[in-house]
C-alpha cells in the first residue's frame, strides 16, 4: 500500500485544476500581455482567475498579485514594504517559528541594517501577545506571523495580532500558505495588510503563489523588470498555473467544511490509536487550535530519519523534524522554539493528512507504525537506559 501523509509539504493536483489548465498548456499560449487575439485569450483567463480567487477571499481583484511560489510572495511582500517604509523605521517583528522563507528573509534584513525581534512561542507554538506588545517600538514598521505552522499545525490568534498591529499603525504580514484553502477566512477579517499563499498546498499546481496587498499599501519593487503584476512581480504570467490555482481554490472552498471535518476525524482517530499502541510518545500542540490534518508526534528515544525511512519502506510518506533529515543537521527550530528538548525534537515526525486519504490508509499506518517503533527502540541505547531506570 502507498500512503501519502505529507500533505503539508505538497498535495496532489486535483483533476478539476488539471483539466482547467490543459487548454492553456496547449492551444492558448499567447502572452497574456500581448494586444493581439492570442494574448487577449490568455489575458481574459488571467483576469478571470484573479477575480475568482479575489471573490473567494473576499478581497478585490487588484489587491492580488501572482508569484511563482509562497516563498517568492513572502520575499516580495516583506522586502517590498520594509523598503517602502524605511523612513518611518527599520524595526520588524516576526515569530520565531516562521517558515524559512520568512525567517531567512528576516535574518537577511538584519544583515542589511534592519532590526528584527523574534517573538517567542509557548509549548504549543502560540506566540506571546504580551511579548508582542512589549516589542513594539516607534520605529516598528512590520509584524509578520504565520497563520498556521507547517510543522505542528498551531493556528495563531491573528485577530488579536491584527488589532495590535492596527492600533499601532504597523503593517501586518501573514504567511497563510498552510491555511488558504483549508480554513474559510478573508484577510479583511484580521486586519491583514499582506498575505502570502501557494497553490500546491490546496491541490493546485506547483510553481504558482500569490500575495494579497491591501489597497493603498506602499510597496518598493524588489524584482525589476516589466510591468506585470503591478511591476512587483514582473515576468510573463504563468497563465496555465494561475488558472489551475483559481480552479483548485474554488474546489477547496466548495467543500471546505466537509474536508475540515473529514481530516480532523481521521487525524483524531490516528492519534487516539497510536497513543493506545505506542508508549512514550507526545502529540505536539494537541491542546490548542491546529490544522485539522496535521499530527506532530514525538517518539521519545528515537531519531526521526530512521522512522521516516522505515515508514517509507512500507510505502508511507511522512516528514521529520530531526536534524538528520535536514541539510544543516540542526533539529527543527520550530520544535526547539516550543521548548521541546533537542533529544526529543530529533524524534519528531509530522503526519499530514489531506483530501485523498482514506480510513483504510490510516488503519494501515496504525498497524505498521508500532513494530517499526519497537524495532528501532530495541536498537536504541537511550530507550534501553530509559527502560532500565
Amino acid at each position, binding site marked *: 500500500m502507498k500512503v501519502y501523509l505529507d500533505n503539508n509539504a505538497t498535495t496532489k493536483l486535483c483533476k478539476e485544476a488539471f483539466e482547467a489548465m490543459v487548454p492553456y498548456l496547449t492551444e492558448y499560449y499567447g502572452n497574456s500581455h500581448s494586444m493581439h487575439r492570442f494574448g487577449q485569450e490568455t489575458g481574459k483567463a488571467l483576469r478571470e482567475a484573479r477575480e475568482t480567487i479575489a471573490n473567494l477571499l473576499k478581497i478585490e481583484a487588484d489587491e492580488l498579485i501572482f508569484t511563482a511560489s509562497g516563498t517568492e510572495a513572502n520575499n516580495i511582500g516583506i522586502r517590498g514594504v520594509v523598503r517602502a517604509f524605511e523612513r518611518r523605521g527599520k524595526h520588524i517583528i516576526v515569530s520565531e517559528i516562521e517558515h524559512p522563507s520568512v525567517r531567512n528573509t528576516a535574518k537577511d534584513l538584519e544583515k542589511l541594517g534592519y532590526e528584527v525581534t523574534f517573538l517567542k512561542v509557548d509549548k504549543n507554538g502560540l506566540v506571546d501577545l504580551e511579548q508582542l506588545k512589549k516589542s513594539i517600538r516607534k520605529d516598528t514598521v512590520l509584524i509578520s506571523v504565520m497563520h498556521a505552522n507547517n510543522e505542528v499545525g498551531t493556528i495563531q490568534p491573528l485577530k488579536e495580532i491584527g488589532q495590535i498591529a492596527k492600533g499601532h499603525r504597523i503593517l501586518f504580514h501573514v504567511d497563510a500558505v498552510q491555511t488558504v484553502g483549508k480554513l474559510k477566512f478573508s484577510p479583511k477579517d484580521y486586519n491583514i495588510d499582506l498575505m502570502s499563499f501557494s497553490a500546491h498546498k490546496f491541490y493546485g499546481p506547483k510553481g504558482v503563489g500569490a500575495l494579497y496587498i491591501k489597497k493603498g499599501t506602499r510597496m518598493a519593487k524588489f524584482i525589476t523588470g516589466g510591468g506585470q503584476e503591478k511591476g512587483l512581480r514582473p515576468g510573463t504570467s504563468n497563465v496555465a498555473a494561475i488558472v489551475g490555482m483559481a480552479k483548485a481554490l474554488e474546489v477547496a472552498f466548495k467543500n471546505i467544511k466537509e474536508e475540515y471535518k473529514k481530516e480532523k476525524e481521521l487525524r483524531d482517530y490516528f492519534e487516539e490509536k497510536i497513543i493506545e499502541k505506542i508508549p512514550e510518545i507526545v502529540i505536539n500542540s494537541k491542546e490548542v487550535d491546529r490544522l485539522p490534518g496535521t499530527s506532530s508526534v514525538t517518539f521519545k528515544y528515537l531519531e526521526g530519519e*530512521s522512522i521516516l525511512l522505515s515508514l517509507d519502506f512500507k510505502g508511507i510518506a511522512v516528514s521529520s523534524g530531526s536534524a538528520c533529515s535536514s541539510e544543516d543537521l540542526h533539529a527543527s527550530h520550530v520544535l526547539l522554539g516550543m521548548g521541546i528538548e533537542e533529544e526529543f525534537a530529533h524524534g519528531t515526525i509530522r503526519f499530514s493528512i489531506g483530501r485523498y486519504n482514506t480510513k483504510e490508509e490510516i488503519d494501515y499506518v496504525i498497524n505498521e507504525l508500532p513494530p517499526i517503533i519497537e524495532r528501532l527502540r530495541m536498537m536504541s*541505547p*537511550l530507550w534501553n537506559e530509559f527502560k532500565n531506570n
Partner: protein
Amino acid sequence: MQYSEKVMDHFMNPRNVGVIENPDGYGKIGNASCGDMMEIFLRIEDDIIKDVKFRTFGCASAIATSSISTEMILGKKVSEALEVTNKAVAEALDGLPPQKMHCSVLAEDAIKAAIEDYLKKKNN
C-alpha cells in the same frame, strides 16, 4: 539526498545488534542532543575479537555504519580493528552523503573507545 542500497540494507537488516553481558571491551560515543549515540560491546580472546554487538540511536546512516563496522572487525585482531577508519567504513557502504560522513566517525570512535576499554582492563 539518497542512500546507497548497501546503507539501506544495513539499516533495515542491521547485523550484530544487541548486548554482550560482561563484555571485555565497551565503548559509548555520541550524545542524544546531537541526534546520534552508539554503544559497542566486544568479547575478545587472545587479542582476537570473537564477538561484537552494538546498539545505536540515530539516523539510517548511523545505524548502517554501526552495523557494517561490527562486520569489519569481527574475527580481527585488536590491532587490526584499531586500523578501521571512518573512510573505510563509508567506502564499505558504497559511500555516504557528504552531510552524513560524521556518522562514520561515530563508528570509528566507538570501536576505538571499546578497544581502549579492553586494553585498560587487560593492563590492570
